């Protein structure tokens, strides 16, 4: 399998190379070196990709094995029989349906909170000039540098004083206040790329600042908002430490906590554990494949335009 793929990749590279520089290679012998370089590149990339993919293949293979085939050495990569029942067993052993519903509820609240409040703040920072704006934006950047774990203990003390433990309040309410420094930063960067004339024209027509934000800038910011929404979903879906600290009742568990608990009761049922893990990973992968463009957008907006 390994070798066959290698050959086909090599063949591909030659074909592309020929297309790209068929005329030039006749004139210059340097491009032959170029072709060799590309072949080497593809071989290295292929080996690397194989290493990166191996844990996924292992995960999938283990998740479909009958229990006795899990404990074979050397392992059987293709289970016989392929046992899809593992997924049903794993996801019904613990009420994963409830966990998924709980997680989605938290995520939906976070989406409303973050998209709403981060975009308001970002608009203020990007589009209105007022005294103290740069000071407060400096604070936004400063909070960005402070790790979650530094604030974990005092925040827990405050939330437990408020009687918010074992509820979703600590996992949702704070996001209504600014929606996270990173999201403000990202949306501000985007709002700044939009032409100022849009706002000026609307202002002359008597449109309020809130109207300009909502009717002109928000529709134009859809790509950036989609990026924020996607990362909000990922953070909510993946968050472990938050629910670990605040959620105690099993009926309020999120998927992450559910899977961690499942692991602690199913020490050696790796078939079921892999099925449950796969089930947690699949939505994330699907999201990536449907919204790839916005993933890249987020990286570019956050890292490079700053």
């Amino acid at each position: 399998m390994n070798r066959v793929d290698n050959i086909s990749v090599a063949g591909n590279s030659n074909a592309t190379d020929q297309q790209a520089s068929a005329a030039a290679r006749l004139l210059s012998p340097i491009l032959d070196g170029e072709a060799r370089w590309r072949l080497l590149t593809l071989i290295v990339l292929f080996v690397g990709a194989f290493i990166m993919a191996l844990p996924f293949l292992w995960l999938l293979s283990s998740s479909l094995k009958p229990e006795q085939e899990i404990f074979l050495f050397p392992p059987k990569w293709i289970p016989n029989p392929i046992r899809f029942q593992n997924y049903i067993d794993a996801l019904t052993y613990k009420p994963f349906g409830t966990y998924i519903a709980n997680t989605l509820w938290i995520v939906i609240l976070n989406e409303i909170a973050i998209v709403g409040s981060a975009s308001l703040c970002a608009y203020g920072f990007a589009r209105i000039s007022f005294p103290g704006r740069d000071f407060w934006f400096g604070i936004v950047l400063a909070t960005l540098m402070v790790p979650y774990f530094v604030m974990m203990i005092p925040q827990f003390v405050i939330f437990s004083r408020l009687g918010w433990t074992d509820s979703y309040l600590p996992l949702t309410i704070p996001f209504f206040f600014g929606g996270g420094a990173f999201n403000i930063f990202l949306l501000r960067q985007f709002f700044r790329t939009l032409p100022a004339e849009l706002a000026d024209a609307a202002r002359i027509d008597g449109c309020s600042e809130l109207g300009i934000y909502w009717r002109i800038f928000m529709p134009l910011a859809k790509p950036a908002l989609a990026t924020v929404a996607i990362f909000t979903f990922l953070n909510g879906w993946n968050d472990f430490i938050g629910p670990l600290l605040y959620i105690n009742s099993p009926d309020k568990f999120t998927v992450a906590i559910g899977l961690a608990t499942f692991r602690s009761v199913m020490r050696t049922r790796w078939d079921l554990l892999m099925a449950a893990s796969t089930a947690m990973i699949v939505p994330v992968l699907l999201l990536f494949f449907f919204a790839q463009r916005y993933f890249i957008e987020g990286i570019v907006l956050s890292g490079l335009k700053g």
Partner: protein
Amino acid sequence: MATSNLFFNPLRPKTNLQRRTVTGYLFISPFILGFLLWFLIPALTAVWLTFTDWNLIRPPRYVGLDNILQLGRDTLFWQSLKVTTIFTLASVPVGLVVSFLLALLMNTRVRGISLFRTIYYLPSIVPAVASAVLWAWIFNTDFGLANVVLTALGLPKIQWLQDPSWALPALIIMSLWGLGATMVIYLAGLQGIPTVFYEAAEIDGAGRWAQLRHITIPLMSPVIFFNLIIGIIGTFQVFTAGFLITDGGPQNSTLFYVLYLYRNGFEFLKMGYSAALAWVLFFIIMALTLFVFKYVGGLVHYEDTQ
């Protein structure tokens, strides 16, 4: 509209600047409120906690500098610092270099390259809990993938998670699986370098190495710098792997700093001591960031020198 001017209202904006100031602050008010509620108040709480002995049940007791003095005597504190430092020193440089090389190899227009990019990127979006469960199985001594690979290479099996000298390396290997995120940031940076630079260099007869040395690396230095800082901040907050896979063991060989912080807070219920640990984390990250800015930042080449 006109009726609102009939009565005296000290808040009614008179000039354009005043109007903009009021509007601006209204827009960013969610952030300001959030900053006060979930940042400033917790920070002050953390200062107070540092000087108290409190287990959340008995009333808090003022202990002066006891919590801070205890740090020096606490061998587990030093152990957790050591573990985190080793993890950072191994994981960050290797991750930075490998992902940079991968990004260089991937920055070519070859058909099928986007498939490679996807394969390398996907592991970095796998939820931490699912990843932890998967890697706990991969590093299983008797039937895990890691030992399957070692055996296939003719090497002896390793007791990855039971051997104090191998548990941390295992988690470092696991962390490198997620280097695709860094790679994509590099890739976005590489694609922003104008091709004219390379064309000019080629005309001047500069080889591949010279182009890398004199064009790519200087122009990419801000991105490398960004990834270095993000990497350091990230490795100081590794929690889930140590918590779920090894539980800090064996013999505290994977007792990450934030895991020790979590234990003091939520297992030993030492709120005061864990607040002191959180301050130490804050100052370490500040000091490292400043250090990196001072000594590495000078090597960064910025295009626009305005």
